[in-house]
């Protein structure tokens, strides 16, 4: 089990299955400073996140739970956030 954690894969948040808990590993830097915008909205390394809801139409955008907050994002922007499923 300890090995799992060490070799834990990080995936983009946009690919995290709904209901699966994860921890934010990193925010990728982007040209448009979207990573800064996401930080200002409340994303930060080490926080628990999970995909709470998916849009009924094409499953995009998604609603993400970060701590006590819920934030809606399109998958494209969510993919800037890399997460480690736990």
């Amino acid at each position, binding site marked *: 089990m300890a090995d799992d954690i060490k070799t834990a894969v990080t995936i983009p948040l946009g690919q995290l299955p709904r209901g699966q808990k994860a921890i934010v590993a990193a925010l990728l830097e982007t040209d448009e400073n979207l990573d800064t915008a996401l930080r200002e909205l409340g994303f930060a390394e080490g926080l628990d996140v999970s995909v709470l809801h998916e849009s*009924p*139409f094409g499953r995009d955008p998604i*609603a993400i739970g970060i701590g*006590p*907050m819920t934030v*809606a994002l399109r998958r*494209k922007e969510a993919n800037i956030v890399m997460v480690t499923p736990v």
Partner: protein
Amino acid sequence: MNHPVKVAVVGNPNCGKSALFNSLTGLRQKVANYPGATVERRSGSLLGMSTVELLDLPGTYSLTPRSPDEEITRATLMGELEAEDLPRAILCVVDATNLSQHLRFVLELKDLGFPMVLALNMTDLAVREKINIDRLKLEQILGIPVVETVAVRKKGLDEIREKLLEAVKLPKLDAKEPEDVRSRQNRARDIKNEVTLSEGIGHKATRVLDTVFLNMFVGPLILFGLLFLIFQAVFSWAEAPMDMIDGFFGSLQDMIAENMSDGLLASFLSDGLIAGVGSVIIFLPQILILFAFILVLESSGYMVRAAFLMDRIMSRVGLNGRAFIPLISSFACAIPGIMSARAIADPSDRLTTILIAPLMTCSARLPVYTLIIAAFIPNTTIFGGTIGLQGFVMFILYLAGILSALIIAFVLKRSLTKSTPPTFMMELPKYQVPNWRYVGIGLYERSRIFLRRAGTMIMGAMVILWVLSTFPAPPADATEPAIVYSMVGIIGGWLEPIFAPIGFNWEISIALLPGMAAREIAVAALGTVYSLQGSEDVVAGSLVSMLNGAWSLPTALSFLAWFIFAPQCLSTIAVVRRETNSRKWTAFMVAYLFGLAYLSSFLTYHIASAIL
């Protein structure tokens, strides 16, 4: 110096700034539960102290603005607004249930060097969520006074006032070099961990409600069901009060007929004033029902969920879910709708939203729709008696507005207002039981505006219209009703050829002119024109029966189609001009709406004439 010192009220969206501002100033600033509810700066003096003026600023997550409303906040704090002197202090409002997120912004603000007071707001919710914060420790770490408040219950106000009076006497320090977001995040989290005595359990109700409202299957059903319910309610709930108002004005006219001899004064009172103004006031119940629904949607937090559900559909036309909120607000009135587009980050998205907002059927069009529907659509039920046909037609009219808005956005975003694909990032705030006091204030304000308009602008327009419809007097050998020989009849005659191809008679053509000032005046104008024209027994009946006799069904349908697009009221045009800061785009909007109105009426009239 007698100038009051300014204190800026700042914080993240949805932390209760405006509610606290209202409680502290006694003003009635709009309060709603979605990011971007406040898009302007408003000011008011601190209750009982004319020496301190509070500035309510739009909520923002940082001092790096991402939309025009957030820019206002930044510019105010940086002293970039010319006419305004810099605020002397900051009242920073934070949500006690989401401390680490809000503290990040507090740290950023603190670096600006202003004396600050921190309002730890929503402490009642924090208690319910079993969050326990060590206020004194927070005060000590930040080095600024921290006051626990519950803005909507007016808790902690005296203490805030006291601390603010102390704060404005302190000097402003030099601004520090801003640190990067990441280290600020870390500092905020460290502070939060230090001052939090017990972590919360989260807002359970929000999680539960979201599993319903954002459910893949039930969510959209609830959204569309809700919209449909609103239109049904506007029609059926308002029936009784509208009948009462109608009866009241009818008996006023009867009274005049009985007690005054026929003559100019009696005609002026009965046909000019009562028929005109009364035919508008009758719609107050409908407008209030519509506003009540929209206010409840806004203050409960549901509006943001609707934006989430609609994002995908909006993205198909090149906009994002954010734009859904201004568009829904435009159902009440396009003006606040257009203003709230300031919360949209992308300039071209914002422009597109402004340009299509007038297509959302605003409440001023309700009188027009209601009148024509009542006169021409039978009051029966369809689909096995479950749905009223009249409400259904109303729904179709709204739908036509929405669909054409989407189509026009689609075309615009691929041609004139092209931009990079927009992003959609939005916090979904906690659900709240609507604050009934604010809903009540909202409705009261709306009634006041509506009645004042009926009493001033509409009444004035009706007086002018009555004069123009009465003079010059008809020749002695007149065979037609007197109005035909009046100024109105003459102008109507000029306009008639323009509107004849879309099935409008001269009475309608003349009603469209004052209708530019406010759409409901078109109804009032019809009331006056037909009242003057009719024989005595027709005048006794309502406008509904008059129209029923005077118009063909294709004309009525064409009139409805005209008002789906109808050129905007003057105040909307003025707001578009101000918000886009472009004469070109304003002219473009008026032209395209006018063109579409004419085209759709033309098609409606000729297709309906061919079929019926």
